[in-house]
């Protein structure tokens, strides 16, 4: 449990600690051929957009393996620290591990360096994890393409990023969606932003939440890997907001009311 006392490793880098202690995950699996088609399994829909008070991040709950539905209560929107959230599309095992690693990385840095990591540092940290994972992605067993939402308390502003599986980061100023159901809703998001009742960035929390529910319901209508809400089983999408107060998930009882009103024509 304890290693040598003599050295002080004070960079605040949790990944370096994992490597030093031999706990960093394997980056290439032997005996698996390359995934020449570069197909990334992404049976899901996650989306995020800027609204009046910050960013809303939403995801369906279904996890699939090929044509099989494996699980219907999967949480694809994951808190990383008090001011950041990650939404995952891709191979769940790798994505969950990345989220855990990122979470520990931010907290380890904050506690060891006695200050929070900068927003740029956090954005790059996820990019580095994805770069380290390229080999697994190319083998077709670990591809991940996440969304990352963060509130910068210094700049008092929320930022949203989309990553490709090689680790390139793209700052999103309006809206983004990823996963197999995303093509069905990207057009709707753009349409809503340009010609809806107001631009996405001007919408209230209630309007933003309601739109997220409708978008996920639409994606589920056309994409079998995206799960629909089932109010009779108290199964709703995961929706979280990130504002100057930090992240906050919409609780299930509140979701029941919002879902009901969102499903009626207004």
């Amino acid at each position, binding site marked *: *449990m*304890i*290693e040598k*006392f003599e050295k*002080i*490793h*004070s960079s605040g880098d*949790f990944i370096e*600690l*994992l490597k030093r*202690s031999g*706990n960093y995950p394997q980056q290439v699996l032997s005996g698996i051929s390359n995934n020449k088609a570069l197909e990334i399994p992404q049976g899901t829909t996650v989306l995020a957009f800027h609204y009046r008070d910050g960013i809303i991040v939403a995801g369906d709950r279904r996890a699939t393996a090929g044509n099989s539905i494996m699980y219907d209560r999967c949480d694809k929107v994951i808190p990383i620290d*008090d001011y950041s959230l990650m939404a995952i599309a891709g191979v769940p095992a790798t994505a969950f591990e990345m989220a*855990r*690693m990122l979470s*520990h990385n931010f*907290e*380890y840095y904050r*506690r*060891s360096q*006695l200050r929070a990591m900068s927003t740029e540092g956090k954005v790059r940290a996820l990019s580095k994890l994805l770069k380290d994972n390229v080999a697994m992605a190319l083998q077709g067993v670990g591809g991940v393409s996440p969304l990352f939402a963060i509130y910068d308390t210094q700049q008092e502003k929320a930022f949203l990023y989309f990553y490709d599986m090689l680790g390139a980061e793209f700052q999103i100023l309006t809206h983004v969606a990823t996963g197999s159901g995303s093509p069905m809703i990207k057009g709707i998001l753009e349409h809503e932003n340009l010609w809806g009742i107001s631009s996405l960035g001007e919408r209230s929390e209630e309007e933003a939440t309601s739109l997220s529910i409708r978008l996920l319901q639409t994606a589920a209508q056309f994409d079998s890997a995206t799960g629909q809400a089932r109010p009779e089983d108290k199964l709703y999408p995961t929706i979280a907001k990130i504002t100057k107060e930090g992240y906050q998930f919409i609780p299930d009882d509140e979701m029941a009311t919002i879902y009901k009103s969102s499903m009626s024509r207004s």
Partner: protein
Amino acid sequence: MFEEPFRWMEAISTRHSYVREKLRKGQPVIGVPYNEGAVIIGFSPQPGKIFEIYDRIALGGLGHPADVERLRMTLLDMAHAEGFNRSSKDVTIERLLQFGLAPALKQNFEEIQRAPYLIQMLLAEINHEDGAEFFRVNYDGYWEKFKQGTVISGDKKVSERIQKKIDDTDFVSCTLNKSIQSALRIWEEGRKKPALEKESLKSTDDSDELDDEIEGHPTDLKEAFERWNLEVGILKKNTGRKCLYSTLSESEISALQSEVIR
């Protein structure tokens, strides 16, 4: 010479004296519960006495700053590696001490060619049943657990006086503000030698025991607030967040100062 048991024991005894002498000026750090968690307080000339270690664990240290830093980093490394590899629920002070820090500290202390750690530590934790627990760790790896709160201080007599007052106070039913204020009062009272003790010290000519006053360290809260920094680390349960640690801001400390000095 160290092959001879007597000389080894003598060397260890000398090390104890050396470390105690070095720690003698270490200012008290007090850890007590309150109705929603635990709080650690301490005054020091320079900031850097109280730290967050993990989601539910805080550390207060006294001694050489480089040693405090080294052991703080060791605890951070152990806690985060364990929390990542298993679960945050597996990160407890007892495990960190019993299977990590304490044996290493003892070994270091008894390897007499190596410099000993000049440190005492107080660790506080909100356990997974939401109870507050406090731990005192000595430079030689010896550690103790307390439910009601505890103190570390370079001066053994100050430590004993403060511990007795902590044991006599019902902190668990106090609010955060009340707990901090009571702990500060205890800090102040603990530093004042009882009249009887002063007389007996003078008569035995044990002038070392009066050094605090001679060296001009603050002996009351007013002076301590004026000359030193107060650090307050709080572990608050039921916040809805996984990290329970927070600190008092400068403005909150100023408000506290006016209340306590008044």
